[in-house]
């Protein structure tokens, strides 16, 4: 068959776009090289719904940030994912930094951001008792919010699939050719034909674009490392706390997550290797030092995990939304605030496709809520993960609800089983057994994530 639209990349950009397009009478597929959705930048970022005062006025970033931020609350409600408007603060530690705050404030007003104010030290401490005593001023943005980025991506893709979108996992796009007005996308799992292509391949968007002869841009990975603290620290800060930004970005933040943990990071380092998601000793130390400047009394002994995300940056620093070839759209350079912007970009894409001649007819049988797989009720009373209190029912649900979890990590991202303080030490053996049973495979075939990431290597005789 020939799909109307093939989207390459199942990050938040691809997923939101797929969901937007699933409203219409179109055949849409999403092609993803990994074993699950949200395996790129969309799984490892700060999860902040930025208010929108950062981006330079007039840029695509500014526009889609503000638009996306306004859409986010409603979308998260529709998708049934967590969203919390916790507000953010940018701290100034020196008198001269106050000017930077003013600049951000004015830029925010220009970008159309509401709920901004500059507050003094006393007010800062009133709102956040653990913020450093050295903070003199802060830009307080009441519309700043937090979401769980992979929960959002998974839900968006699931909703798209409930409305007919197909997802091909572990299918890396190798080449694209154009034949009689349709594209042929060659993947590691076969060829897929489509009339329109949307390139949402994150770090590899340059490579995909080159496949159709466009080498006008290049993506450089910029590494961001994080530390995650135990839930017992919930309440350390309520707002997302930044320092005044530098050239390399917004700096290390201290923020609650929607699940009640505390997130520290990211670092910011330009690297060459697009697969280098290793955490480093230097990075970890940077985070610790930087976070300690903003917030007092952080017990770094309560770190439960660390991780790394790679920002897909381009030279000019703005999102790159272009059509280098007819019926081929690049959504490239989607670094921060790409998570926030995704819903707005998705709407923009569907308008662009319409302008390119794609007919958009609304589906009659569109379902506005997600279809959750029904599991026997008693299974919800059987606890599998003690730290996050995840039941067997929830795990079975994740295995059979779109987009279906086929690995231990995929279950973890959907249910939080294994994300608590014991990091799967307790529940992993049970999760492995449940996966094997529900997927009808041998326990030895169960994988942690993609590739040959088997959990157990053999059976005792």
């Amino acid at each position, binding site marked *: 068959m020939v799909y109307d639209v093939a989207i390459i990349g199942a990050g938040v950009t691809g997923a939101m776009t797929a969901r937007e397009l699933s409203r219409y009478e179109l055949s849409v597929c999403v092609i993803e090289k990994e074993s699950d959705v949200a395996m790129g930048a969309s799984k490892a970022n700060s999860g902040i719904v930025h208010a929108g005062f950062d981006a330079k006025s007039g840029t695509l970033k500014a526009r889609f940030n503000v638009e996306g931020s306004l859409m986010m609350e409603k979308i998260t409600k529709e998708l049934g994912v967590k969203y919390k408007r916790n507000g953010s603060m940018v701290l100034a530690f020196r008198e001269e930094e106050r000017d930077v705050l003013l600049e951000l404030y004015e830029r925010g007003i220009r970008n159309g951001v509401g709920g901004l104010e500059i507050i003094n030290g006393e007010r800062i401490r009133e709102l956040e008792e653990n913020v450093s005593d050295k903070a003199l001023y802060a830009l307080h943005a009441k519309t700043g919010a937090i979401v769980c980025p992979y929960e959002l991506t998974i839900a968006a893709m699931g909703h798209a699939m409930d409305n007919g979108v197909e997802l091909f996992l572990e299918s890396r796009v190798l080449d694209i050719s154009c034949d009689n007005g349709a594209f042929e996308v060659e993947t590691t799992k076969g060829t897929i034909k489509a009339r329109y292509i949307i390139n949402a391949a994150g770090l590899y968007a340059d490579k995909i674009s080159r496949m159709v002869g466009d080498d006008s841009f290049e993506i450089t990975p910029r590494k961001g490392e994080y530390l995650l603290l135990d839930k017992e620290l919930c309440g350390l800060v309520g707002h997302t706390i930044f320092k005044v930004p530098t050239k390399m970005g917004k700096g290390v933040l201290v923020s609650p997550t929607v699940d009640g943990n505390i997130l520290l990071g990211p670092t910011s380092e330009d690297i060459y290797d697009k*697969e280098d998601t*290793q*955490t*480093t000793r230097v990075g970890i130390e940077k985070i610790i030092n930087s976070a300690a400047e903003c917030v007092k009394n952080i017990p770094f002994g309560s770190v439960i995990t660390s991780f790394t995300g790679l920002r897909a940056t381009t030279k000019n620093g703005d999102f790159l939304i272009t059509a280098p070839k007819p019926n081929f759209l690049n959504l490239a350079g989607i670094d921060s605030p790409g998570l926030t912007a995704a819903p707005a970009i998705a709407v923009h894409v569907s308008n662009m496709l319409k302008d390119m001649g794609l007919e958009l007819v609304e589906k009659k049988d569109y379902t506005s809520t997600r279809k959750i797989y029904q599991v026997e009720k008693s299974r919800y*009373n059987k606890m599998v993960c003690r730290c996050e209190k995840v039941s067997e029912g929830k795990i079975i649900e994740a295995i059979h609800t779109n987009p279906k979890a086929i690995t231990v990590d995929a279950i973890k991202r959907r249910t939080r089983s294994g994300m608590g303080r014991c990091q799967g030490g307790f529940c992993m053996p049970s999760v492995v057994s449940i996966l094997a049973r529900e997927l009808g495979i041998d326990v030895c075939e169960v994988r*942690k*994530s993609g590739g040959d990431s*088997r959990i157990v*290597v053999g059976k005792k005789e």
Partner: protein
Amino acid sequence: MQTKDLVIIGGGPAGMAAAVSAYGKGIRDLLIIERDESLGGILQQCIHNGFGLHMFKEELTGPEYAWRYEKMILDLGIPFKLNSMVVDISKDKVITYVNEEEGEVKIKAKAIILAMGCRERSRGALNIPGTRPAGIYTAGTAQKFINMMGLMVGRQVVILGSGDIGLIMARRMTLEGASVKAVCEIMPYSSGLARNIVQCLDDFNIPLKLGHTVTKIHGKDRLEGVTISKVDENRRPIPGTEEYTECDTLLLSVGLIPENELTKGMGIELDGSTRGAVVDQNRETSLEGVFSCGNVLHVHDLVDYVSEEAYIAGEAAARYIKGERVKNNNISVTASDNVSYVVPQRITSDKEKVKIYFRTKNELDNVQIIVSDCENVVYKAKRRKTKPGEMEYVTMAEDVLNNIKGNEISLKVIGE
């Protein structure tokens, strides 16, 4: 709402022994709640021998030790619920548990004994840089896979941490055909028992690398290797000492942490050093009628001490229920020089002798243990040797307790 005199949370060795002792003191309206499918706790996966030398004067395996108590529970007819997880306990002692058959159930108890055991410290707690492939497990998880499910987690193994579980797993993996390349220990000494080093490592020529740690993880999908580095006296890796070791499995045996989420939920005071509740000599916590024993209170190296402690808690709970528990004192016990923690942290009666358990911070020889109040040394004892990995105790008799001045005593240790 259902009511009970005594509810015991956790059916491991601590929970079982506490139930048996409370029963022995006349408590009949009691219940053990256990989330696993059998009683016995962590012992069911500890299939090796080495349990029970103090308690039964016999060398038993974990399941055999567990069976001794399970049998007492069955013979006495003490009720227990399996596959039932306690999800909440309120300050006024209402316990909420869930299971498949009954859904969510609430029980109001006169007294509660917390015996939830502990969990293992994970990789995240260590912040080892590198990738996050499959093949990294805590030693206890690997133990569960092999011993309970018959599944091999890997073939070429490096073990980080020389605690007893790590040592035991080195032998277990070797017996099942894996090759254990090394056991790395960041400290200059092992926290495991010397007997385990002999019979788990030396017997199989497995090198124990003291003063070494894993500084990097390699491999994308499945673990491919680790970098091992020497550390300096401040436990910082020494640049230039990195060595790459190929392996498909890394087991972490880097410490246990008492499982006190429920305890915290009740607002019970916790001790930052033990990470368990602050208790008195009865193992009663800061919340009246709530007791704590076993690994949830502090991590024990020997199950025999767990049972002993559980007897204390069980008896005290019985006395509390019958209104016979006396509190006529309030002395706080604190850890001083070279001592990492003490249990109990409070003495609330001078009617009975009290054993104070503690761990030292370092390995010491020719050790003097000194307990003093605000004015004088009230008690002194000697040991040939102390190790952080091995719990010690001193017994303070009634007359010593009676002579304490002020309301604080501190325990310190001097040695070479």
